[in-house]
């Protein structure tokens, strides 16, 4: 996927001010940057949710200007909100979101096992869950979708140590079968270890960290840590 000089606007405010970024298949890209830098907007742009005001962009071969609806089926987005229904149980939520994109019940069950939800929590209404447990549920909904491009906005927020391990393992598995992942996270130690590349978002623009690759990404983390 590729963006060149992408500008996106919320209201009259340019959340993205000419972003250039190229991501290759199988990469795990970590977006970092201060609050309000445009990380979330970048993810929403990739998901085909935010229209491109200026510039060009392609995701999975689809033009973001003309064809952003057709990207959505192949992309999985975990935003700030979890998109869960408070009155339904964990299982019902994962089932619903899985079913809407045609996942089989076996895939749904596997996703729940993957995120450690198959046991005690399965029948609990989402309204009774803690923030971290809700996040796990939302991740399970995402896992059930088998997207080609995963867009994760602060996925580690609220997760405990096991949750994070499960998430990381899930993401590695996904890339192993050809998925591409873009993560926005403030938790550099956790996400940095995972990422193959580190990208800095500042003022709605992209600053590529020099020398991509896992090792240099961790090096960059050491500097900032």
């Amino acid at each position, binding site marked *: 996927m590729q963006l060149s000089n992408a500008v996106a606007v919320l209201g009259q405010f340019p959340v993205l001010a000419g972003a250039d970024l190229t991501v290759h298949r199988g990469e795990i890209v970590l977006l970092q940057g201060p609050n309000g830098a445009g990380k979330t907007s970048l993810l929403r742009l990739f*998901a*085909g*949710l*935010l*229209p491109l005001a200026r510039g060009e962009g392609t995701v999975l071969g689809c033009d973001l200007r003309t064809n952003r*609806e*057709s*990207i*959505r*089926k*192949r*992309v*999985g*987005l975990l*935003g*700030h*909100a*979890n*998109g*869960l*229904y*408070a*009155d*339904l149980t964990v299982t*019902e939520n994962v089932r*619903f*979101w899985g*079913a*809407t*994109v045609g996942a089989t019940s076996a895939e749904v069950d596997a996703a729940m096992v993957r995120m450690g939800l198959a046991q005690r929590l399965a029948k609990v*209404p989402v309204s009774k869950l803690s923030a971290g447990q809700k996040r796990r549920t939302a991740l399970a909904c995402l896992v059930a*979708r088998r997207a080609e491009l995963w867009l994760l906005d602060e996925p580690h927020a609220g997760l405990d140590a096991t949750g994070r391990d499960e998430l990381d393992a899930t993401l590695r598995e996904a890339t192993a079968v050809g998925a591409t992942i873009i993560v926005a996270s403030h938790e550099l130690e956790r996400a940095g270890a995972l990422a193959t590349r580190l990208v800095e978002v500042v003022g709605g623009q992209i600053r590529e960290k020099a020398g991509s690759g896992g090792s240099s990404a961790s090096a960059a983390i050491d500097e900032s840590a």
Partner: protein
Amino acid sequence: MFRTARLVAAKDLRIELRSRVVTNQVLPFAAIVMVMFAFALNTDAVVERVAPGLVWLATLFSLLILVQRSFAIETADGATDAMRAAGIDPAGIFLGKALALAAELAVLEIVLLATAVILYRQDLRASGVVLLVSTFLAATIGLALVGTLYGGLAAGVRGRETLLPLLLLPVVAPVLIGATRATEAALGTAGAVVADGWPWLGLLGVFVALFSVGGTLAFGPLIEE
């Protein structure tokens, strides 16, 4: 499209069965409205004469609340966004939510009709049953369709509580007129005969036909960013 509609409708109805907002809050509201009408209209004769109209007026007021509720579930935790992000067919969402809303409305209308029989001394007669049932069916579907359509537009925007009635009430005027006249004919209010009701049912049919097609086409562009 229909698979999505079924999923969304089942989800909405399940949430309703769990939370019981309609049964515990909207039904009592509609009932008290029926009592208040009697206070305002004072004499028994007047109330008995206008009972069918009051049933449908109370339905319209309740419709506004039901539509708000229907979309509050979606916007509470960003599910509307998640649906768009998942590339779920907007036509399916539209029909599904309209179906669930129609089911809730139907329950409400039965209670209101019972209230009219008890409080406003309306008589159900065998000759009018077919007209009565088809009128309620057509009006319910029509109201659910336009309610969902404009509810989707108003969902997630500033001032949605006030925008919805402004947009919705003018549109449902034909349903109010048609359903009231047909119900009068079916119940024999003020000596109306059943035969008078059929043209009105035709009007409701046209309404349903127009807005089922128009709504299915228009819903997507209305909820898109």
